[in-house]
């Protein structure tokens, strides 16, 4: 690795990194503005409740995602059972439904007259005047988050299991280990970093969520921040609360990155093949299929069927509101996708040609934006834009309340996605191609435009699509930063759910799920191709 050089590329990347970090720095700076009465009130009255609820939520969700994610990953990578070929990719499907959407669906289903109660009554499992326990509770939220987020743990654990070298497992057996010892002494320690990396992601998502906990009326850190800002109109105290949450999230990001790095040491090219799977029979076969089917049913098939059943009730399918929201969403998503992808190309290109430690550090640093909760990002960006408009107060309010802030938030949140795609695409072609081009007289710009970009074509397309799917689902930052009267699909669903007009949310929700399936297609392909390569 080379040392830092003062040239255009390094100055440009440093400037972008600084711009990315300004909103976060502003949030942390609030800790030095002094603490007012509102903060004292929050600390004395509600902070304990916020902390306790957030903690219980994280612990409960962690237990559920570990239980479902790890066991299902073990089952599909070790055994062959009825439906296992379909279930191995179907287990990822709940990722297409964001937690807030699942929360709205589950709430409606478990209402007194909801479909869950109706089915139970028709099967005489409960009496006509009885109802199932309400889902709008802390335990309900834990279940909803668990079902929505277990695919993170499932995916990472499954890939780690697939990558355990077959000769290593064979060595353990020949050295006298039975299946149990091989599992506890070899498999489990090897997949542990991957499990923890997945778990850290789940904790981050749970702590960052706003839509689901707000709908369930559970006072957590995010709802507290929202209430302090837009209820008490105290941005500074909201930022101070956000700083505390951000510190916890930073710890999660650190743990996730550290565990992911540890997980890499077990990668192998001699991973297990389909022929190594053990065929299950009888009751074991049934139990394995049942265990893997339940989360797919609960996290995808049932909610999707429920939303489709709502859409049948709606007469005006393509309302003006829906059309506008769809157009707005696509405009934002594609713009953010293009900008983020362009930035990722420039950063990765600079990293490839400069090979400098500094560029690598900057790239890693700005990739951490994915972990910053949308709500906190929105607060930081709002503050940042307000300062900017204050400086230009003679001209008028230019950026506050414009699409600029919203796109800025999306770019920060989704940079890691595009970076991962382009980084792995860049690794697929050798640096000797660059050297040949340079020797033949190509400038850096020609190298980028005429050689790299055509070679990265598929990666660029994938990257834009992934950002689009991420932006379409995003709720808290959109809710806060959107211009007045500018609705997106996520905001439309949120508004309908808040106004108890959930049936009207059916089409925007279906559209969100449909676009949410894009990354699932790519993830499935990626896993399939890595299996094929091995």
């Amino acid at each position: 690795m080379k040392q830092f050089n003062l040239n255009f590329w390094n100055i440009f990347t440093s400037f972008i990194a600084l711009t990315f970090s300004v909103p976060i720095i502003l949030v942390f700076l609030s800790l030095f503005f002094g603490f007012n009465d509102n903060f004292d009130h929050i600390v004395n009255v509600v902070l304990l409740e916020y902390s306790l609820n957030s903690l219980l939520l994280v612990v409960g969700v962690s237990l559920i995602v570990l239980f479902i994610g790890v066991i299902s990953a073990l089952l599909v990578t070790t055994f062959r059972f009825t439906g296992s070929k379909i279930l191995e990719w179907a287990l990822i499907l709940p990722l297409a439904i964001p937690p807030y959407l699942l929360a709205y669906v589950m709430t409606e289903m478990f209402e007194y007259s909801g479909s869950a109660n109706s089915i139970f009554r028709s099967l005489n499992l409960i009496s006509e005047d009885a109802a199932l326990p309400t889902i709008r509770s802390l335990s309900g939220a834990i279940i909803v988050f668990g079902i929505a987020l277990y695919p993170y743990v499932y995916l990472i654990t499954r890939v780690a299991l697939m990558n355990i070298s077959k000769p290593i497992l064979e060595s353990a057996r020949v050295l006298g280990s039975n299946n149990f010892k091989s599992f506890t002494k070899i498999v489990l320690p090897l997949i542990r970093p991957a499990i923890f990396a997945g778990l850290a992601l789940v904790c981050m998502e749970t702590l960052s969520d706003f839509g689901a906990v707000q709908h369930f009326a559970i006072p957590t850190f995010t709802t507290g921040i929202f209430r302090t800002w837009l209820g008490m109109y105290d941005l500074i105290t909201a930022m101070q609360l956000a700083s505390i949450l951000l510190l916890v999230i930073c710890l999660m990001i650190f743990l996730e990155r550290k565990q992911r790095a540890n997980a890499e040491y077990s990668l192998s090219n001699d991973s297990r093949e389909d022929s190594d799977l053990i065929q299950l029979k009888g009751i074991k076969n049934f139990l394995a299929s049942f265990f893997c089917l339940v989360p797919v049913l609960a996290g995808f098939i049932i909610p999707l069927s429920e939303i489709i059943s709502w859409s049948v009730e709606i007469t005006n399918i393509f309302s003006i509101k829906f059309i506008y929201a769809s157009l707005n969403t696509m405009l934002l998503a594609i713009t953010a996708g293009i900008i983020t992808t362009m930035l990722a190309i420039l950063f990765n290109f600079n990293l490839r040609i400069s090979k400098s430690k500094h560029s690598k550090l900057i790239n890693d640093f700005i990739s951490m934006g994915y972990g910053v909760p949308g709500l906190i990002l929105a607060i930081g960006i709002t503050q940042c834009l307000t300062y900017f408009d204050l400086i230009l107060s003679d001209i008028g309010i230019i950026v506050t309340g414009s699409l600029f802030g919203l796109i800025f938030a999306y770019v920060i949140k989704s940079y890691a996605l595009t970076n991962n795609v382009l980084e792995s695409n860049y690794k697929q072609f050798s640096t000797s191609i660059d050297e040949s081009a340079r020797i033949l007289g190509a400038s850096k710009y020609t190298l980028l435009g005429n050689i790299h970009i055509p070679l990265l074509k598929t990666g660029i397309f994938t990257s834009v699509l992934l950002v689009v799917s991420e932006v379409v689902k995003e709720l808290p930052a959109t809710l806060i930063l959107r211009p007045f009267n500018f609705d997106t699909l996520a905001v439309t669903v949120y508004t309908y759910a808040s106004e108890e007009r959930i049936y009207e949310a059916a089409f925007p929700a279906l559209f969100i799920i449909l676009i949410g399936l894009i990354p699932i297609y790519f993830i499935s392909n990626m896993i399939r191709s890595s299996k094929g390569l091995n």
Partner: protein
Amino acid sequence: MKKNFLNLKNIFYEINSQPILKNINLSINEGEFVSIIGKSGSGKTTLLKIISGLKKQTQGEMLLNDEILSNENIFLEPENRNLGLVVQEKVLFPHLKVLANVEFGISKEANKKEKAIEMLNKFHISSLIEKYPHEISGGEAQRVALARTLVTKPKVLLLDEPFNGLDEELKKDIYPDVKKILNDNKITTIMVSHNTSEVKNLSDRIFNLENGALKEL
């Protein structure tokens, strides 16, 4: 020295009705070093995996010291055969240090550590005990793999091109160590390789595996 210590009788193996091994008969005396050479894909590794129990033959019987390892009705699991297998791939457990790797196969004995260090000493690598597999060289890793297997005192040692990928200088260093330890402990060994000079250096008898059949050279 016991005659016919390991006995393979009429071993057949096929995948999807495609024969890989046909009527393999092999008798090895205790302490003998036998090598099997053959082209890539001739079934050498498959034969070792069948002996170790990682694969089951389609037909035939295998006996070790007159005890049945595997036939039509009996199949002893690999962990219960007390055989050693060293392959060319990286098979050290990446999350365990060198010492823990070598201790892994020693079953509940009090002086596990001493035994592991003693074996590492024989391969002149006791200085590596605190290192992880990714911190040592390929040659060192292969010595650790051999030490890990030999410390379990296997009845038969199976070597699947264990020196493949090591440079000639390194091989010259390792051969005497391996030969001495095998001779001292009278360990019966079967090695598969495609390197004839390596085979000549170490073996008492050499077989060629071609078209699924064994022929003594």
